[in-house]
């Protein structure tokens, strides 16, 4: 397998694995791989410290590794294995697709494995899993398979984005924690006191408490927070005392504890016989949800005639009535969020005044609420420095408007900015939320900015044009509608641009630079240049050519065409063009000479590695095509045109397309006992054929010299692949496949035929073409 071939696509045979020095994370344990894959099932990726062999199999691996299998269990499940043990096995996500290439990305960051779809890491995330015992040594990626061929291509290794993945993991963990599962990472952290506090942590806690209950005859003192109590009931504190207090001499401590627990955590337990006192207490303070709840339960108990003196514990919880709230929002039922927002507006119960230097007072706030969101504020108010005892806190060097939005977000859980606008405030807010470690807000800002960017005007236009077929632009003389160089560059760079071949890109660039009304292709420009000078031909856009030419992905052009180009007048007259071609042809010939792939890699690196890494990679990537892409993976696979036509383009099970009249097949000799037609005609479809497969039938009459031809009209034929004394087929029933190279692979045809040009081997029937299977691959429309 040649290196260029490898770059474009790799087909991994069953139970094999492809390794390459290139498929390696720059930093051990952290990296991201993006790739496209086409397979029936089991797109398998191995992550190891060292590369393995071609016949590596993960079931036999006893060193540490990660395995990610997309489409396991006959394309039904996603699986992650760690050192041979299955840790994740979920149904129905990240499945593979055999009819076309699907893009995926897998990122590993210190044991956090994220899997997603699409070309852009951290977008379209499908699944994420955190290894409790991270393997920080994985570095090499192996592309593997199970019982079917898997085709891979456009493989890129990138660094995995740390900020984003940390952001994700934090939100993920915060989300999982209430279920009790998967929260282990957070809980481990909390040992160091580095964990953000939930409202439940403040239950009967003296931190930030601004009021007390004096309960029972023993006068037990219980601390509380007015801002919390005030948001769910009416607590008349006696303000005459040094610290606002409520005396409850006739209430026992467990009842008050139940009430507070219910308010702070949303659920509580109480003995049956104390239920009535809890009802009395909650109605005294107008905690309405609890009052209703108690009454309901007492009603039920009366109905069932239960013994009221029983000490059975009863669970009271506020249910999921606030499901609409964001999961990261710290205030849940029974707290009234509108009241909390109100506290910010009227400053009631506030215990801290926030000042921004150069602006003055921003707002009256509550230490408790700020601490619930941000550990920075929590520590600021508790660690014993100046702010811990002061009631005025001064912030310097923060933008006031964004800072107020930040505080508003803490009280309401919403970002109160206009969605339609991306303002500097939003960016400032993003910076602030990072400064103070408010992950949820950081995430919200990112989301807003991304949403806006995808809607933004410029991107919108570029997308719209790029989705239009590039070749269409050329054929319809539309390339001239592009007014400026900048926009053309944007389109050429854009990942969504669709073309059928790189030559069309070159044609488009030349046409645009000539400011021509008609469409030119490079061969006609070559002819024009024999009589004219480039200065005359391109005029003012001569310099633009130098900018634009590097966007043609020359490495993807067929070598024979490259040689033609090298000899053309284009190369003679345009220095940039010549240099590009020479460097690529030189590279190709060097690689052809050297068999060791590593040497070739080294040379390539020295040639191209100095430029921007991403650019270099992109030059080898196929662009998208509006033609249906049917790529050869293995002999007898289901990716070819005839199979595709047989299933009515993927709609149903395979029916012989000849019977379904999608394809007409005729033979040169009349139908007989031995002859079933062998030439192939399609109705209105066109195929740019780049690979074909035939299979010998049961006889030993092997074809040796034949030709595959294509035609648009059925009269004039073009040879796609000429075989002369080809010894490939030597067994009955053998499959054989050949690539179609050269310019003909880029020409669309409607008719195809296989024609014997010399007698076949064997004793009899040497003028018979003995095949039982034919399949064509390429770009289909």
């Amino acid at each position: 397998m040649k290196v260029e071939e490898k770059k474009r696509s790799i087909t991994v045979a069953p139970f094999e694995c492809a390794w390459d020095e290139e498929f390696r994370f720059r930093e051990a344990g952290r990296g991201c791989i993006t790739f496209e894959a086409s397979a029936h099932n089991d797109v398998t990726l191995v992550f190891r410290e060292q590369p393995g062999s071609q016949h590596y199999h993960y079931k036999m691996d006893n060193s540490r590794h990660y395995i990610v299998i997309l489409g396991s269990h006959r394309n039904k499940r996603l699986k992650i294995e760690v050192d041979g043990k299955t840790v994740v096995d979920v149904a129905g996500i990240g499945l593979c697709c055999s009819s076309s290439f699907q893009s995926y990305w897998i990122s590993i960051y210190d044991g956090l494995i994220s899997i997603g779809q699409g070309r852009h890491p951290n977008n379209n995330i499908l699944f994420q899993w955190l290894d409790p015992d991270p393997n920080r040594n994985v570095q090499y990626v192996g592309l593997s398979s199970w019982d079917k061929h898997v085709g891979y291509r456009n493989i890129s290794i990138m660094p995995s984005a740390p900020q984003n993945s940390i952001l994700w993991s934090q939100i993920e963990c915060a989300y999982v924690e209430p279920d009790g599962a998967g929260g282990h990472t957070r809980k481990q952290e909390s040992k160091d006191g580095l964990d953000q506090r939930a409202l439940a942590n403040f239950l009967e806690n003296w931190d930030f408490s601004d009021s007390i209950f004096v309960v029972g005859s023993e006068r037990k003192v219980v601390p509380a927070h007015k801002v919390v109590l005030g948001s769910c009931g009416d607590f008349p504190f006696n303000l005459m005392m040094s610290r606002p207090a409520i005396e409850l001499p006739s209430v026992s401590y467990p009842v008050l504890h139940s009430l507070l627990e219910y308010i702070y955590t949303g659920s509580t337990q109480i003995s049956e016989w104390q239920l009535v006192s809890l009802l009395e207490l909650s109605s005294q303070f107008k905690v309405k949800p609890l009052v209703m709840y108690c009454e309901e339960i007492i009603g039920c108990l009366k109905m069932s005639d239960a013994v009221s003196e029983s000490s059975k514990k009863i669970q009271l919880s506020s249910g999921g009535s606030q499901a609409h709230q964001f999961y990261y929002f710290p205030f849940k039922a029974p707290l009234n969020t509108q009241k909390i927002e109100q506290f910010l507006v009227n400053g009631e119960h506030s215990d801290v005044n926030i000042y921004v230097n150069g602006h003055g007072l921003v707002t009256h706030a509550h230490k408790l609420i700020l601490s619930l969101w941000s550990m920075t504020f929590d520590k600021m108010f508790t660690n014993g420095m100046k702010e811990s005892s002061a009631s005025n806190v001064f912030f310097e060097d923060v933008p006031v408007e964004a800072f107020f939005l930040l505080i508003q977000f803490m009280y309401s859980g919403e970002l109160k900015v206009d969605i339609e606008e991306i303002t500097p405030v939003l960016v400032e807010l993003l910076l602030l939320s990072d400064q103070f470690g408010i992950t949820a807000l950081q995430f919200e800002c990112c989301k807003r900015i991304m949403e806006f960017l995808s809607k933004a005007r410029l991107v919108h236009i570029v997308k719209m044009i790029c989705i239009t077929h590039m070749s269409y632009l050329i054929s319809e003389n539309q390339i001239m509608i592009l007014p400026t160089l900048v926009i053309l560059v944007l389109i050429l760079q854009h990942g969504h641009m669709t073309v059928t071949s790189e030559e069309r890109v070159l044609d488009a660039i030349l046409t645009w630079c000539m400011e021509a009304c008609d469409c030119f292709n490079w061969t006609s420009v070559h002819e024009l240049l024999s009589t004219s000078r480039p200065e005359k031909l391109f005029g003012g856009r001569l310099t633009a050519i130098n900018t634009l030419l590097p966007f043609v992905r020359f490495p993807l052009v067929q070598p024979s065409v490259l040689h033609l180009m090298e000899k053309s007048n284009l190369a003679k007259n345009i220095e940039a063009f010549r240099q590009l071609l020479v460097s690529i042809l030189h590279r190709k010939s060097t690689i052809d000479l050297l068999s060791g792939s590593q040497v070739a890699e080294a040379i390539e690196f020295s040639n191209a590695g100095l430029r921007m890494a991403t650019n270099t990679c992109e030059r080898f990537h196929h662009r998208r095509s509006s033609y249906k892409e049917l790529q050869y993976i293995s002999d007898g696979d289901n990716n070819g045109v005839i199979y595709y036509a047989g299933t009515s383009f993927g709609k149903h099970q395979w029916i012989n397309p000849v019977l379904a009249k999608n394809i007409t097949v005729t033979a040169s000799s009349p139908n007989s006992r031995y002859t079933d037609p062998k030439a192939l005609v399609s109705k209105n479809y066109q195929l740019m054929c780049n690979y074909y497969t035939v299979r010998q039938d049961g006889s030993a009459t092997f074809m040796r010299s034949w030709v595959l031809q294509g035609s648009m009209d059925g009269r004039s034929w073009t040879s796609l692949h000429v075989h002369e004394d080809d010894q490939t087929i030597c067994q009955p029933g053998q499959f054989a496949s050949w690539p179609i190279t050269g310019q003909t692979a880029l020409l669309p045809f409607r008719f195809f035929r296989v024609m014997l040009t010399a007698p076949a081997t064997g004793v009899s029937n040497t003028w018979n073409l003995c095949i039982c299977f034919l399949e064509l691959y390429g770009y289909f429309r």
Partner: protein
Amino acid sequence: MTTRSQIQPLPFRRTRMDAALAASSCQAVTDAIRDIYAQDMEKLNFEQLYRRVYEVVLNKHGELMYSEVATALTAEVEGLRTSLVAVADGGGGGGAFLRELLSKWRRHTEAVAAVRDMVMYMERTFVVTYRKVSVQELGVKLWRDGVVCSGDVMPRLVEAVRRERAAAAEPGDLMAGVAEMLTKLGDKVLSQVMDASSVDDYSSASLEMSVSEYQ
């Protein structure tokens, strides 16, 4: 598409921080560490210090900040060690030495916690990204290597523990405190002290008991 939804240019408010400014911020932070160890935190301004750390790390001087903090902590630990040795030399029995050691340890852990709060932004970003030792762990490591395992504390500690054990049949508060500290420093130090200070089987068992009690 309305004209409103256009990207407004964002004026870059933050200019690149030069090395001198970064160094002066680091100086402020190291001064604060000195004050924290001197238990003089009241006058420090958390917001100011946090913001300085944030700006230094944000402007890619995280390495400088981290090394400055590490150096300052090392210096403070060294200071605690000299004063501890001075107490031991100035007389006072094993009990007095242990009490002094524990009070210094307490002061150290409190200070480290306060320092960690101050450099929280660095801990959250720089330390994670570059896989540095967190300030908390650094504090433990410095105390273990710089104080407990140092040449002039270890023999005194072993001697004091032995004397204490021989004197009291039941492990008291003091021994429980020592055991707690040693457990935090890791099994290696714990067994080192335990083995060296065992007079006989009985007293070794008594320290083990106090350790297991703590655990």
